[in-house]
């Protein structure tokens, strides 16, 4: 596998090997790694900077450490797997592909993710998230596992303004401050097997975790109350 020292070769050094499997070493805050990448496999050691995997259009990026803000911004396809935690505004406007975070995600994760028919954006977070998770969600699936069983799985204002898609939380209690335009429900066996199990099993395999442990306990789904559409707020003049 080709090794690229980012401090020596810079982002351009990565671009030269876009369609290959490479190992990127020495990351210390460099931004825009994998921006617009279409193919290839990248293993990153160190701490990449903001906007990693923005506009990612294919291929896979594995990060040993943490990622910072705006990771997977407007990502279209491919995989971003982070063995640590992610900063704020993770997977903003994501259109497709998978983002797996082994640890926590900061504020505003999964805002305005999308889906169309069979094409779904998938965000799985092993830890917990900050506030505003999945705001304005337009489609796709967010799963938060809270594997360390900490209090408050999502922070405040989870799913505010969402109008499609589903947020699955491995918890028995609905998040605090949930909008009255959202509904919560317990996930049944069929949905557990057809939707959550395949995604969580894939997530667990990427980080060599026990899928059974990740799936322990009850899951709750947060969705938009479709009977309360935004058009009801308005009166056309």
């Amino acid at each position, binding site marked *: 596998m080709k090794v690229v020292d980012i401090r020596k070769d810079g*982002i351009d050094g990565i671009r030269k090997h876009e369609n290959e499997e490479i190992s990127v070493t020495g990351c210390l805050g460099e*931004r*825009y790694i994998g*921006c*617009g990448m*279409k193919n290839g496999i990248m293993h990153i050691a160190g701490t990449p900077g*903001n*906007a990693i995997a*923005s*506009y990612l*259009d294919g291929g896979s990026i594995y990060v040993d450490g943490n990622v910072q*803000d*705006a990771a997977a*911004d*407007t990502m*279209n396809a491919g995989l971003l797997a982070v063995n640590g935690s992610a900063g*704020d*505004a993770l997977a*903003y*406007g994501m*259109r497709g592909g998978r983002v797996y975070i082994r640890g926590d995600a900061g504020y*505003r994760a999964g*805002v*305005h993710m*999308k*889906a*169309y028919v069979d*094409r779904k954006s998938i965000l799985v977070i092993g830890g917990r998230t900050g506030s*505003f998770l999945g*705001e*304005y969600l*337009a*489609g796709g699936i967010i799963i938060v596992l809270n594997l360390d069983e900490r209090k408050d799985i999502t922070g405040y204002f989870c799913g505010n*303004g969402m*109008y*499609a898609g589903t947020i699955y939380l491995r918890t028995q209690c609905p998040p605090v401050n949930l909008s009255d335009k959202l509904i919560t429900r317990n996930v049944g066996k069929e949905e557990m097997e057809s939707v959550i199990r395949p995604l969580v099993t894939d997530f667990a395999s990427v980080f060599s975790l026990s899928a059974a442990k990740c799936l322990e306990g009850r899951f709750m789904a947060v969705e938009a109350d*479709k009977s309360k*559409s*935004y*058009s*009801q*707020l*308005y*009166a*056309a*003049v």
Partner: protein
Amino acid sequence: MRRYRIRKDDSCVSCLRCVSECSFGAITASENRTLVFHHDKCVDCQRCVSFCPAGAIYITEDENRFRENSVFRKDDISEIILQAETGGVLLSSMGAREKNIPVYFDRMLLNASQVTNPSIDPLREPMETAVFIGQRPEKIQRDKEGRLINNLPPHLELKTPILFAAMSYGAISLNVHKALAAAAEELGTYWNTGEGGLHESLYPYKENTIVQVASGRFGVHETYLNTAAAIEIKIGQGAKPGIGGHLTGRKIIGDVSRTRMVPEGLDAISPAPHHDIYSIEDLAQLVMSIKEATHYRKPVMVKVAAVHNIAPIASGIARSGADIISIDGYRGGTGAAPKRIRDNVGIPIEFAIAAVDQRLREEKIRDRVSIIASGGIRNSADTVKAIALGADAVSIGTAALCALGCHICASCHTGRCAWGIATQDPELTKRLDPEKGAKRLVNLMNAWTREIKEIMGGMGINSIEALRGNRMALRGVALNEKELEILGIRYAGE
């Protein structure tokens, strides 16, 4: 609430064309082919009037109206009643119509040469209306052999200083986008996708396309960014500064749903802020990530609404690495906006242009960015005045739609546009022929460009770029001293 009254005169031949043309259900026919007028449904779009072969239809304001006093006008009263009945936020479209806010373009007059510095005849002399939009290098650099180093950042070249403003697929129909794209290509200028993505059938127009990245990120992906001449980050819009967008589910069908990646029939929301932008540094990061994704080959624009502190905001944008600032004024149009926001938030574009140009000059960063002004540009004279105030170019939205048939009935938000413009109903969208539409847009722009050349010639100027920020070319009338000071112009007679 009835606002208009439909009438017909004796020349009506009962062909029922008006019935088939009315998309709001305001005119129907009884079994014996007698016209039935539903006045309360009429929006005064003038479609029936335009297509009546006998010229027999008339739309007038209804004589029966609320009794006004010096404070409460008829609209105030009818809106109170509507909100009392529905509890809803008033939703409207197109630009602000507040009559008490002056159109400042009408209070500025242009200069012309007399005796000295003779005027130029544009029919005889070459007149340059082309402008280059983007960053300009701070200095000319040469290598050791004295050869010029090409350090010109990516830029746009416009053959006329007018672009088509951002209007999204969804808010308007694909046929409108087709007409705009084809016209932009023929004219050597640019059209703007707005925030609803770019339909694949328009990829061939990439050299004349500006794609937009807004808070909802609709239709944004790597191919989209690279299928464009420039990318515009939309922060705000003149018709609704500070708030997000709302596309009614009625307009989200078929390809609109697919292009935006939102479910059919559900209202699509654009959040008010970009959730990854909380500072100029964050904006700079988005600018640079787009440049990374497009390999630094395309200029990046930032569009903001003209608001109170627009000058320092523009200064921040200029320092963010953006190449172009697009400023949309108080009268800017929209496919849907809360009426109170549309009519009460923001500042007129005339002040914004002058304030921003002045501030960037004072900070010696004017050449780092170009300025595109929009929001109520109605004709070639407004264009020239905007450039003399300090804009590099203007963009037009409402004027372009008028060229395609729009009669500014301000009913875009209903999705029932009878002219096939602001609708996704297949029966209505086919009313607009994109080829004919493109021809009309080309005619309009060519006419304006000829007028611009005549105005320039009259001033003794043969290059539109020489007029940029030349406020000595303007004089004010009916303006107070503060207005003159901000606009940076003298009073007529001075």
